């Protein structure tokens, strides 16, 4: 069914108290919007400009207070929702994902199982530019990679846009804000920047759903998403599980197998 039509119906029937989707913003951009009255549903849009992952809003307290929220979701948002369910940050009955196809047709997926089944049919491929850059970095020697990242991080001003845009960065008190003692330097000098990105990548390893919102959010164009993409690939390769595939997934680094294979510990 058409997204606007479906949203109007859900709101009119009282199945949901709000629909989270996109509406027109300034300069031809799309911006996230909460639709709370049936007649406002006509403002919803969904097209190629709606790349942002909306799942991050769902864990917020003010959004929770609205009641049950339907969310217009592309595949990345659906993956993030599954991962949030797996991490027990959302309850199935609090949300109603509306899976969208390229034509803007929406399908309500009321259970985690339905979301899993829907995603199982979708192929996930990394964008070509990201794949190429990852492979190029992998082929470099260590000094080359060091130089690459130091050059990139030299532009970082620690605005934390990458952290704030991430649906998985929901901690109420982030390690970055921990200042007794100051764990990671807050200034954006070379050491502080490296440590920040190291912590962010490590805290998202095994949890990143590779939506790439962090990279899109970066105002100075650092490919920060490659750090978490890399971690995600490592976890997939070594432990055979991927974030955002199931609502019953154990955290890869919070569990173990006695026969985990490594080659470097002596």
């Amino acid at each position: 069914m058409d997204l606007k039509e479906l949203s109007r119906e859900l709101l009119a029937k009282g199945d949901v108290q709000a629909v989270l989707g996109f509406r027109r913003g300034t300069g031809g951009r799309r911006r996230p919007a909460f639709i709370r009255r049936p007649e406002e549903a006509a403002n919803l849009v969904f097209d190629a400009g709606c790349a942002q992952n909306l799942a991050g809003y769902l864990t917020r307290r003010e959004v929770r207070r609205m009641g049950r929220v339907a969310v217009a979701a592309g595949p990345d948002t659906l993956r993030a929702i599954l991962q949030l369910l797996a991490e027990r940050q959302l309850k199935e009955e609090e949300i109603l994902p509306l899976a969208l196809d390229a034509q803007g047709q929406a399908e309500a997926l009321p259970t985690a199982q339905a979301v899993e089944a829907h995603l199982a049919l979708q192929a996930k491929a990394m964008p070509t530019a990201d794949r190429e850059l990852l492979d190029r970095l992998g082929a470099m020697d260590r000094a080359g990679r060091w130089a690459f990242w130091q050059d990139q991080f030299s532009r970082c001003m620690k605005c934390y846009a990458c952290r704030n845009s991430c649906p998985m960065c929901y901690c109420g008190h982030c390690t970055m804000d921990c200042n007794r003692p100051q764990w990671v330097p807050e200034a954006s000098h070379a050491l502080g920047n490296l440590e920040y990105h190291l912590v962010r990548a490590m805290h998202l390893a095994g949890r990143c759903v590779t939506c790439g919102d962090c990279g899109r959010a970066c105002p100075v164009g650092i490919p920060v998403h490659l750090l978490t993409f890399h971690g995600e690939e490592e976890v997939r390769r070594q432990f055979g599980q991927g974030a955002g595939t199931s609502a019953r997934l154990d955290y890869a680094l919070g569990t173990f197998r006695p026969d985990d294979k490594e080659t470097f510990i002596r």
Partner: protein
Amino acid sequence: MDTFEPKITAFVCNWCTYAGADLTGTSRIKYQSNVRVLRLPCTGRIDFMLLAKAFAQGADGVIVSGCHPNDCHYTSGNYHARRRWMVYRGLMDFLGIDVRRVTFSWVSAAEGARWAELVDEVTSRVRELGPYTEYQELALTGVE
């Protein structure tokens, strides 16, 4: 002072490697004095950032060591640590941090001789690699 003496920071668990290092001493086995041992309750407690902090504070090499798999005092701390290092080592390498300077190992409380061998080996390797100025210089940019 023209010969370079590396600083090695060793993060070890209380129950196996620390006791093992103790045994090295009581057995009167000599080993390189470049290592600074930091005792933690368990390898599972060793936050990955501690390794990065060691480099930032002037370490040229790092050793992380604890109980062999199946021997953990807390049953599973070292298994969790192992997974963490499997991911963290790859990430360090991806960022261009020199992973040859980080040595992960299992040394039990009975392996005093093995601890001495490990420290000697790591010390000579890091001595060859030279000081890790590349990383330590990062810290200097913070204090102007």
